């Protein structure tokens, strides 16, 4: 088995970052288990998933955007806005909580769609549009409320507090033992849908093609504009879903929630082996990217002496390291060196090809 994995790695360089991430995760966890008794508890392992639903959902959306060659910095803002808006609507009362959730998803899609429109049809730079989206979303959430709004709703409590015991590990009679929560199931559903959509549908192949080279995708007659619109809309949907998962988790809403989520999510995607320039990567890698960040957080907690501020620093350092690995791999591919020196001008494509948008 090991030799076949080795052979696959040798045959496919693209799997190297993914393999590095998986081994990093395993090694970091083993290191923790050796160092700290507490980390051998299966519940701590499951807590990696319980702590991360909103992170993974958001990271899956971001993976799709980055694969298509774009970027979305607005995720933290949209997540915060979703928590505040749903908390405010729940407090106002009169609307069914399920309807509120649907409303939030629609809102996320609307924000993502609006940004996608500006990026795709008006040819604005993705990062400045989504940066503005971040500010608008955060500003709007403070407009709704300056303070945190608690959520006191039965549905949210049930969704947040229900414990799903793990068969074989827990005792079903006394209801003690390792468990996961409902949002964990949601995060895996999102992940599976993304894996299916990216690897087994026409849309997924178009996303990879657009990320690889937008010009070639256009020349092949692929629906580039529609796909880009769709990608940002999907990420808006994922951000809203992540916001719902977060509000279920913390039972409140505030504009300051999910600070710096952009970096964490982009970091998770990059650590998961996706190339920032688009077109290369696997959504399953993102799961391990999120898990690696989770292990780092857990290790910092177990250490007890390190300040929690080490987490963003560690995430930043790891992101850099993986960007370094990837550019080293890209350099070894012995492509014409011009590719690396070329400034980012792929978005300003040949004027002759802009017919579709006209």
């Amino acid at each position, binding site marked *: 088995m090991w030799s076949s994995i080795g052979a696959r790695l040798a045959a496919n360089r693209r799997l190297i970052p993914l393999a590095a991430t998986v081994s990093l995760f395993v090694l970091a966890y083993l290191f923790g288990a050796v160092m700290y008794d507490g980390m051998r508890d299966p519940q701590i392992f499951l807590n990696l998933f319980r702590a991360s639903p909103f992170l993974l959902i958001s990271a899956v959306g971001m993976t799709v955007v980055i694969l298509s060659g774009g*970027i979305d*910095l607005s995720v933290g803002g949209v997540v915060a806005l979703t928590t505040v808006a749903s908390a405010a609507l729940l407090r106002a009362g009169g609307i069914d909580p399920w309807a509120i959730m649907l409303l939030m998803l629609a809102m996320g899609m609307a924000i993502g769609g609006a940004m996608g429109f*500006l990026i795709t049809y*008006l*040819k*604005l*730079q993705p*990062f*400045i*549009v989504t*940066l*503005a*989206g*971040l*500010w*608008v*979303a*955060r*500003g*709007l959430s*403070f*407009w709704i409320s*300056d303070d945190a709004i608690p959520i006191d709703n039965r549905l949210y409590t049930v969704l947040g507090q229900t414990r799903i015991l793990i068969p074989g590990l827990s005792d079903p009679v006394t209801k003690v033992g390792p468990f996961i929560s409902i949002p964990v199931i949601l995060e895996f559903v999102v992940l599976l849908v993304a894996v299916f959509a990216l690897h087994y549908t026409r849309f997924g192949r178009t996303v990879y093609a657009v990320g690889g080279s937008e010009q070639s995708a256009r020349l092949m007659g692929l629906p580039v504009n529609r796909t880009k619109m769709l990608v940002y809309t999907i990420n808006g949907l994922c951000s809203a879903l992540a916001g719902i998962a977060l509000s279920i988790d913390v039972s409140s809403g505030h*504009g300051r929630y999910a600070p*710096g989520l*952009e*970096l964490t999510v*982009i970091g998770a995607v990059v650590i998961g082996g996706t190339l*920032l320039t688009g077109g290369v990567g696997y959504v399953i890698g993102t799961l391990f990217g999120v898990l690696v960040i989770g292990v780092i957080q857990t290790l910092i907690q177990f250490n007890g002496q390190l*300040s929690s*501020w*080490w*987490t*963003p*620093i560690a*995430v*930043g*350092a790891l*992101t*850099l390291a993986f*960007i*370094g690995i990837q*550019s080293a791999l890209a350099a070894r591919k012995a492509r014409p060196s*011009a590719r*690396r*020196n*070329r*400034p*980012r001008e792929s978005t*300003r494509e040949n004027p002759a090809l802009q017919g579709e948008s006209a």
Partner: protein
Amino acid sequence: MTRGRPSVSWRRATQSRLFFPLAILAVIMLFDLAFDPAFFELEVIDGHFYGSLVDIVRNGSTVMLLAIGMTLVIATGGVDLSVGAVMAISASVAAILINPDFLEVSRDAAYTFTPLPLVIILALVVATICGLWNGILVAYWNIQPMVATLILMIAGRGIAQLLTSGTRIQIFYEPYAWFGNGWIVVPVSLFIVAALYLGAWLATRRTALGMFIESVGINARSSFYSGINEKRVKLVAYMFCGFCAGLAGIVASSNIRTSDANNIGLNLELDAILAVVIGGTAMGTGGRFSLLASVVGALVIQAITTSMYAVGVPANALLAIKGFVVVVVILLLSAQFRDVVERLGTRKAKAA
């Protein structure tokens, strides 16, 4: 422009890079005047000027400092999201140097552990190193500027927190507070802005550096082939931006006599980017820049902020308005959008 034939001088005025920011500034000022008739009044107390206008200029000094540095970075085709975090780092460094034992607060207004010039120099050196880091990532590692600087934007506040052990350090040393609170007829911070502007203007317009920066922004590859060391030009731009952010951090912490790693420079990268964009330097593509237009852009931002506070918009909600302004300004400046509008115009004309 299609309506009638405007006179040559009018057209020249509207095509100047300063026209757009000055026009917005005028509109906001008129709005303020309608809201508060005493808006333009200047008072002279003890030989110092006071008034709403002076307030705008004084509170805008940090954004002006940031905008000058950000202009050069954006002109090279990049962006620096980390300026707010670098401000926090330089403020923390300064505060620690003044009083390393910050848990034992010394309320002596004349006490400082490190001599003042050394405090300033070290804080600026640390900020410039932050810029150097960004520059290395962008120019030599070929990481997209937005991602490279995002790392320092998030991690930088963590570093500032680690430096100050997560506490808010009060600064009692009076000479340090002079930078943000002193007056020589007009606020001292204005002289700092003027000096920085003059230095930047001389460096970019009296040497070839400005042209190098513009050429790297327009086309890095052909600049490289024309013998410009484009990587080093980018590096210099990011280092200068870090230096400016350090200066802004000193002025800001001196003004509030506190170093607060969480809040100093919070969201100011937005203001700086917005100022540069209003000043007409193209975001993302780089190229031609005007330092003066960026400074006027910074004044526009501060005027908007002051006016919104006057109307009663909460500080945090202001972000949303600024975000909208960014999108609108970029839309107005984008060629694609102008094409669409022009096409709509001709279609209507044909129909009529």
